[in-house]
């Protein structure tokens, strides 16, 4: 049984200066998932033969029916889950090298996942504290910048319970930002929010993605969200979880809210919806095959 190797902690090699235009897609692979199977101890096949390459600066959405392994794949991408067979490479290296204290990776969970006992500022600075970054002016500035960029300036001393769901999620994004990640993995971050807050946060994430030059892999259930945000939509089918389609959204950035009401948007949504229906049908076919 092959597993994602967790190597001893080595100094992360410098990937070199980032000379590309922020928000543009360069051919350099950030993440390569090759022939990954994930079988749980109870025999459930969560992923079968997953192959996916994410290039620097891409915004890739993983879309699929419930139970198709989107979140499992994302956790494997974050080095949080072991694979049964196949392998995952980050910047053509092992997680043990690149994932050194998460400098290049950040994860935003389905819920805000804030420490309820800590104030917003302490929550945002958590990754830096875990890296023993100290309390230098530079560190404090990073936290101020992150809070400012997500619109939470002035809420440093609030407790998470004092914030709305949307604001908690912003704090979660700010926490991911302070690490200055090259790769941001987001697991249905806005799934529990109302439509308006969700649209606003979608625009904010797109803006940050462009400004910061992040690479984002974004799990979502929403066809509209996937099309609006992504440069690529990867469609997955269930039972077993596998990648069945990869659709490029060739609409230039920045994407304004007008894009949401354009015929191009409707066209892409139809294309992705059809792919999703095919993916769902594949899962149902498998279910029928299993019937006695």
């Amino acid at each position: 049984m092959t597993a994602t190797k967790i190597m001893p902690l080595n100094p992360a090699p410098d990937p070199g200066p980032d000379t590309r235009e922020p928000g543009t897609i360069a051919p350099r692979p950030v993440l390569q998932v090759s022939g990954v199977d994930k079988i749980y101890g109870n025999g459930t096949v969560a992923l079968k033969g997953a192959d996916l390459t994410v290039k620097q600066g891409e915004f890739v959405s993983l879309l699929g029916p419930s139970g198709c392994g989107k979140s499992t794949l994302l956790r494997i991408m974050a080095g949080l889950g072991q694979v049964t067979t196949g392998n995952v490479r980050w910047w053509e290296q092992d997680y043990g090298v690149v994932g050194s204290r998460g400098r290049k990776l950040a994860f935003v969970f389905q819920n805000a996942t804030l420490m309820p006992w800590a104030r917003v500022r302490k929550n945002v600075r958590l990754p830096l504290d875990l890296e023993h970054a100290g309390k230098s002016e530079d560190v404090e500035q990073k936290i101020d910048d992150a809070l400012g960029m997500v619109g939470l300036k002035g809420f440093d001393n609030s407790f998470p319970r004092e914030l709305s769901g949307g604001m908690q999620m912003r704090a979660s994004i700010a926490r991911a930002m302070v690490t200055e990640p090259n790769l941001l993995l987001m697991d249905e971050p806005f799934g529990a929010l109302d439509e308006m807050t969700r649209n606003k946060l979608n625009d904010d994430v797109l803006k940050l993605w462009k400004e910061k030059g992040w690479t984002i892999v974004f799990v979502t259930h929403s066809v509209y969200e996937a099309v609006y945000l992504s440069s690529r939509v990867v469609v997955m089918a269930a039972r077993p979880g596998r990648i069945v389609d990869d659709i490029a959204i060739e609409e230039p950035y920045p994407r304004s809210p007008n894009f949401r009401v354009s015929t191009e948007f409707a066209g892409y949504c139809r294309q992705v919806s059809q792919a999703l229906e095919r993916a769902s049908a594949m899962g149902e076919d498998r279910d029928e095959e299993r019937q006695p």
Partner: protein
Amino acid sequence: MNAPLIRNERFVQIGAPLLVGVLVLLVWQLTVMAFEVPKYLVPSPVDIGQSLVSDFPSLFNALLMTLKVTFLAFAIAVMVGVAASLLFVQSKWIEISLFPYAVLMQVTPVVAIAPLIIIWVDDTTWALTICAVIVAIFPIISNTTLGLRSVDPNLLSMFRMYRTSRWQELMRLRIPSALPYFFGGLRISSGLALIGAVVAEFVAGTGGAQAGLAYMILQSGYNLQIPKMFAALILITLTGILLFALMVWMSDRALRNWHESALKVEH
């Protein structure tokens, strides 16, 4: 215009149970007087009050002894209990190996083993303290272990992603997560420490300079000083209530900003 006192939540919280207490005492006093019940059978509240005043020096010394054993036992139960919990969460194997012995201590009646402890341990105070620790320690171990394990799995994943040390995980994540459970354990354990101290005193039958409230109850019973017996009982009850209130206050201070149990919800 000021709201009527009856609508004041704080007034009602204190006033309502106080009123019930006063009514019960009144009925008690009137019943004893009406039926002329002798004080060696059921003393009236006034008799008990008089005993509290006249026997105060001996009762106070007994209270100090019981408090000493209770606080000593409670402190040891907290320290040993928390240490055991921290040990348990280090490895499932350690927990599996040792937890049954913690349960064993919980289910063994202290009355049954107190005579042994009193034989083994020369110093009476320490013998009583050990008995009280045995009674008080389990809620601390059980609750704190549960709390240290009840960590948000996503937060734990995040910590693991940042490759934190066990120490960081413990200090920054597990201990704060365990606080509500720990304080729940404290509330139960504080009362049990007092019960353990009193039960151990009954079994030990300690006399002389080291007589606690339980011994005072025994002695008063033998001498048919029933009002004094009730007075000692009242002191034990008041001690228990004050201990519980202290734990509630501490829990409220520690959790009031973030935990549901201590939040003041406005409707």
